[in-house]
């Protein structure tokens, strides 16, 4: 892509998110979301492949629907209360509608059906931007509104963790697995939103770090299916040995960093007398762990029997920038001992 156009689009994406962060008026927040959506669309279809264009159209339609629903809800709230401020949503109908609109924006179950198809049509870098940066603005809004219906968020959260777990079980395609992983993690974030919002933010940031590592590892290996990962040990042996740790961190196993948000969420849910819900969420994490383990099984723990038939690829030095991957992998693996410091930061 022309570097000037790319710069404009990336700046526009940043602008959209920043506008939403900085806004206290619903119209400005909606405007930021729209700028964000429109800026990523050319990035998604830059390869001009029909599947990429299909993914772009599906993404545009869902995001436009969500934005329209959000605008409708904010106008309804302004009509009833006379307030355009984000925090002053006191009636249940607009608040519920806003929650549902934002759930569609980020891809929470049962409004998740677009996510695997859209991610499947994109290349790994754009998929990464979709899974990480595009979630910031809607979450910023979710954190600011006062939820009127406590059970709605819990239902959305639990459904997302279960759907994310079950949906990813029978997938061969890595991008679809990453989509279902995203849905499951968003479910965990939403579960604790109304009780401890800072924990939602922590989970979101931890998810960003972990999923960034995973996406970039797959990009370095240039693989989009589980089968193609089985050849990665000869191309990038160090990354092949680190990826199981990233996957187990995503699965939420101690002593890796991914355990931290899950542990704190389960603790908070138990404090709120929602122990059965916490149990169900923890069990659904096992489903996700199964397909993470399957990827690490294919990549690192087993040697494909087919290697003897092919020529070994030349181990040329890679031109890819792996410093961000190194940083995020270290954070993904080693951050758990800093939990007390992070918890103290949260409660500031």
């Amino acid at each position, binding site marked *: 892509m022309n570097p000037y156009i790319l710069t404009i689009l990336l700046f526009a994406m940043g602008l959209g998110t920043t506008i939403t962060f900085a806004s206290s008026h619903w119209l400005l927040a909606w405007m930021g979301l729209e700028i964000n959506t429109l800026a990523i669309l050319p990035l998604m279809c830059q*390869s001009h*492949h*029909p*599947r990429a*264009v299909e993914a772009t159209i599906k993404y545009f339609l869902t995001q436009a629907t969500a934005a329209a629903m959000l605008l409708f809800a904010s106008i309804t709230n302004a009509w009833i209360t006379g307030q355009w401020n984000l925090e002053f949503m006191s009636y249940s109908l607009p608040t519920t509608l806003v929650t549902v609109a934002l759930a569609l924006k980020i891809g929470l179950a049962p409004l998740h059906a677009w996510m695997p198809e859209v991610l*499947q049509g994109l290349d790994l870098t754009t998929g990464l931007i979709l899974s990480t940066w595009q979630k910031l603005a809607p979450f910023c809004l979710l954190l600011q509104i006062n939820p009127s219906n406590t059970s709605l968020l819990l239902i959305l959260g639990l459904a997302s963790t279960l759907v994310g777990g079950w949906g990813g079980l029978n997938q061969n395609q890595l991008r679809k697995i990453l989509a279902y992983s995203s849905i499951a993690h968003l479910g965990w974030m939403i579960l604790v939103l109304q009780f401890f919002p800072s924990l939602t933010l922590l989970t979101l940031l931890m998810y960003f770090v972990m999923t960034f590592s995973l996406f970039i590892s797959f990009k370095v290996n240039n693989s989009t*299916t589980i*089968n193609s990962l089985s050849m990665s040990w000869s191309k990038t042996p160090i990354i092949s040995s680190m990826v199981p740790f990233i996957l187990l961190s995503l699965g939420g196993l101690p002593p890796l960093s991914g355990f931290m948000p899950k542990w704190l969420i389960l603790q908070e849910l138990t404090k709120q007398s929602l122990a059965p819900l916490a149990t169900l969420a923890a069990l659904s994490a096992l489903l996700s762990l199964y397909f993470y383990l399957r990827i690490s099984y294919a990549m690192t723990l087993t040697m494909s029997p087919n290697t003897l038939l092919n020529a070994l690829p030349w181990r040329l030095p890679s031109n890819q920038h792996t410093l961000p991957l190194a940083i995020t992998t270290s954070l993904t693996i080693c951050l758990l001992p800093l939990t007390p410091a992070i918890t103290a930061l949260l409660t500031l």
Partner: protein
Amino acid sequence: MSLPKISRVPASRLLSAVHDPRWPLRSAAPLAVPKRALTQSGYRRPGQPREDKPPWQRIKFDFSKGLEGITKHFKLLRQEFSDRLVGPEGKPIIEHMLEQNRVIWEFRGPDSLQEWTLSSDREIGGQSEIHLKLGKNNETCFLYGTLQSAPPRDGETRYSGYCSMRSKQPLVSFDRKKHHDWSSFNTLHLRIRGDGRPWMVNIAAESYFTHQKDDLYSYFLYTRGGPYWQDVKIPFSKFFLTHRGRIQDNQHPLWLDKVNTIGFTLGDKADGPFQLEIDFIGVCKDYAHTEDFAYEVYKRNPEV
């Protein structure tokens, strides 16, 4: 004393002498050109009048047919659920990870012929013929017929002379589309015995937009006429994009995760009989083939 009956409307017989009572206005009387059908569906052979029957007269309603359909679709749905417990596409994941070859279509019984659809220019009024039967010992499929390039004399069609065999779209319960996932493979492997004619292999992938429904990815299949079987391996990177038979300028590789159908077309303008025997159609993974796409896409008007 009864009042005389005053009729406001003239007697119908009188009216019919003037004009048809169903058409109060003379100008709305039916014209010689047949009016447009209520629903347009299916192919209309050029030169033929359009079908005027409304949908409820075209469908044959039958209770037993309905019951059969319900049992069939629910059985398929149950099969789908139980397949999901085993793994993707009903096979355990270990099979997906280890497989290097997969036979998709092999012709071992009369049921295998039901998965294929034949078509020729007979549909548009031409004279080509195509037939499909099982070969010797029910081990292969035998596609044969006659090609005639004489265009039909309907005043519209200019070219003719094609015969083709296309696989049917796989369906799951309730007639939903299922796609072949060949993303673990990179080569198409055919075992065929032809008569020296050049065929085209056409693969149709799933498309989203209506104007992409005639998009096919094609490649050539040159057959030898000999009595020996021919193993043809075509990498998927070689398939180029065509739309309604015309090669497109903007090419892109075929994505293998949602393949719908495969077809073989003969249109080499050589009139006469033809034969093609197919043993199996499979996909395989050639580790030595690392090409992503065989056709470079140059910028046609590069900025200087």
